[in-house]
C-alpha cells in the first residue's frame, strides 16, 4: 500500500469528524474490505434532503448512490446528466484526475456530492445542466434533449 494513501479506518474516522450524522462501517466482502457510509444531506436550505451512500475500497474510485428519494429522469430525457448507468444511476462526481487516494472522502467526494445535487435539482426544473463537466458528455446530453430552449 502506498504510504501516503489514506486507510479505510482513517477515511472512516474523518467522515465521523466532518459528517457526524453519517453511519460508517467497514464491510468485509468477497472482494476485500470496503468502507460504506450512509446518511442524509441537504445541500441548501431549499434543497430536498437526500439519503445517500458512499462506498470505497482501496484501489478503486469511490462510488456514490442516492437511495432516497429516487433520482428522477426529467420528462423527455432518457437519462440524468453526469451519471453512470452501471449499478445506478449513480452520480458521477469527478473525473479521474480530480481524485486520488490521498484525499479524504469527507472533504472531497462529500462536498462534490452536495454540488452535484444542486445542479441535478436545477436540471430537473429547467432541463439545463449548469454545473459544467466533461464537455463531450454535455454535447451528448444536449443532443438527446428534445427540448428547444428559447
Amino acid at each position, binding site marked *: 500500500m502506498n504510504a501516503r494513501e489514506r486507510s479505510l479506518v482513517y477515511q472512516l474516522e474523518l467522515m465521523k469528524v*466532518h*459528517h*457526524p*450524522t*453519517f453511519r460508517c462501517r467497514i464491510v468485509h466482502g468477497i472482494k476485500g474490505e470496503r468502507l460504506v457510509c450512509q*446518511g*442524509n*444531506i*441537504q*445541500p*441548501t*436550505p*431549499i*434543497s*430536498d*434532503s437526500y439519503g445517500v451512500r458512499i462506498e470505497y475500497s482501496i484501489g478503486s474510485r469511490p462510488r456514490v448512490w442516492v437511495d432516497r428519494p429516487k433520482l428522477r429522469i426529467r420528462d423527455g430525457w432518457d437519462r440524468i*446528466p*453526469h*451519471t*453512470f*448507468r*452501471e449499478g445506478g444511476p449513480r*452520480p*458521477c*462526481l*469527478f*473525473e479521474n484526475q*480530480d*481524485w486520488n487516494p490521498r*484525499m479524504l472522502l469527507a*472533504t*472531497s467526494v*462529500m*462536498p*462534490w456530492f*452536495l*454540488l*452535484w445535487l*444542486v*445542479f441535478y*435539482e*436545477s436540471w*430537473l*426544473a*429547467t*432541463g*439545463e445542466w*449548469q*454545473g*459544467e*463537466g*466533461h464537455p463531450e*458528455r454535455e454535447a*451528448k446530453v444536449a443532443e438527446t434533449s428534445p427540448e428547444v430552449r*428559447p
Partner: protein
Amino acid sequence: MLIHATANRQLDLLIEALCVQLSLTETQHTTASRAYQTLGDWLSESTLLTPYAPSVYPQGSIPLGTAVKPRRGLEFDADGVCLLTTRYESLTASAAYDLVLSRIREHGTYRDKVEARERCIRINYEGDFHLDIIPAIPVDAASTRIFIPSHDRSGWDPSMSNPKGFEAWFHSRETVQRVLGSVRADAEPMPPPTNSAEKPPLQRSAQLFKRRRDVYFDHHPELAPKSILLTTLVANAYRGQSLVTDATEQVLSTLGALLPESGPPRVDNPSNPGENLARHWTEDRRAYGAFLRFRADFQAKMTGLQQLRGLDKIADALRELFDPDGAGFVDRALSSTTASFQKARVEGEVAMSPRGSNLVSRATAAAATAIPRNSFFGDE
C-alpha cells in the same frame, strides 16, 4: 453571498430573480422613454398648442417601477399625461382632446398609428408597445392635481386625479426598515437589501401582486382589482421588509386582517382625498368576494411555497403562481440563480459547512471547508 442559512433568504433570491424576469426589459424601457420624449417635443413645437405650454410626463406603472411584462403576447402599455397649462374656464375638455389629437395626427409617423379612445389617445408603435396619452389641465398652480376629461369628454371630470402625487406617495412608502437585535444565531447579520441597486422590495412585491392578479383573474378580468387599487393596498400594508418574500407575506397577512368579510371597505386614494379607489367593489360585490378569495389563495400558496424543498418542486409552485402559460419566466429566473451559484463555485466561494452535510458561503462561515476542484463526468 449565495447560500444563506435560512430557507427564506434562499427562496427570496429565486423570487427576486423572477421579478427581474417579469420586469420590462431595458429595451422596452428605452422604447417607452423615447416615446414620451418624442411626443413631448412634437406637441411643444405646435403653434396652436404653444399658449398652453404642453408637457408630457409618464404616469402609472413605469414611473412607479411596478410594471410587469404582459402575458401571452399582449402589448405592453405605457401611460402618459399631456398637461396643458391653462385655466379650467379657458379650455373645454373636448377642445383640449381635439387639439392634442389633431397635433399628433399631423406627425407623419404617428398619423396611421393613432387611435382616439374614450378619454385618452393611443399611439400604437411598431412591435409590442402602445402609449396612452391623456390630455389634462392643472387644478391649481400649487399642487400636482389635474383634471382629466370625463368619459364622454363633455367636460373635465370633477373627481380630479393626481398621478405625480401618487408616485411621490408610493415612493415614500418604499423605505426599508433595518431590523436591529433580531439576528438569529444561524442566520447571517441583517444584510442590506440585495436589490438596492435595482428595485426596492415594495416595487418587487407590487409586481408579484399584479402578476398574480393577472393569472388569478385570467377568466374573469371584469372582477380583477385595478392596478392603482392593488398598488395602494400593497403600499399601505408594507412595513419596510428588506426581502420581497417577507414583504409579500406581510402585505397578505395585513390585508387579511384589514379587509372585512362583511363588505367592501373604502380605500382612499392617498394622493387624491375623497376618491374611493375601491368603488368597483361597492358597485359589484362579486368583485370584492373574488378579491378576498384571491388574497386567501395567494397567502396559502405563498405559505406552501415556503415549506417546499427541492428546486424542481419550488419551480413548479412558482410556475403555477406566476407563469401558468409556461412562458419561461420561472425557468429563466432559476437558470440565473443557478448560474450565480456556479460562478461562486468556480470562484471558490462555495464551501462545505463545518456542521457537515450542507453547503455554505465561504464568506459567512469561518470554519467552512474549502471544496477541491472537480468536473462532473459520466458514461455514454
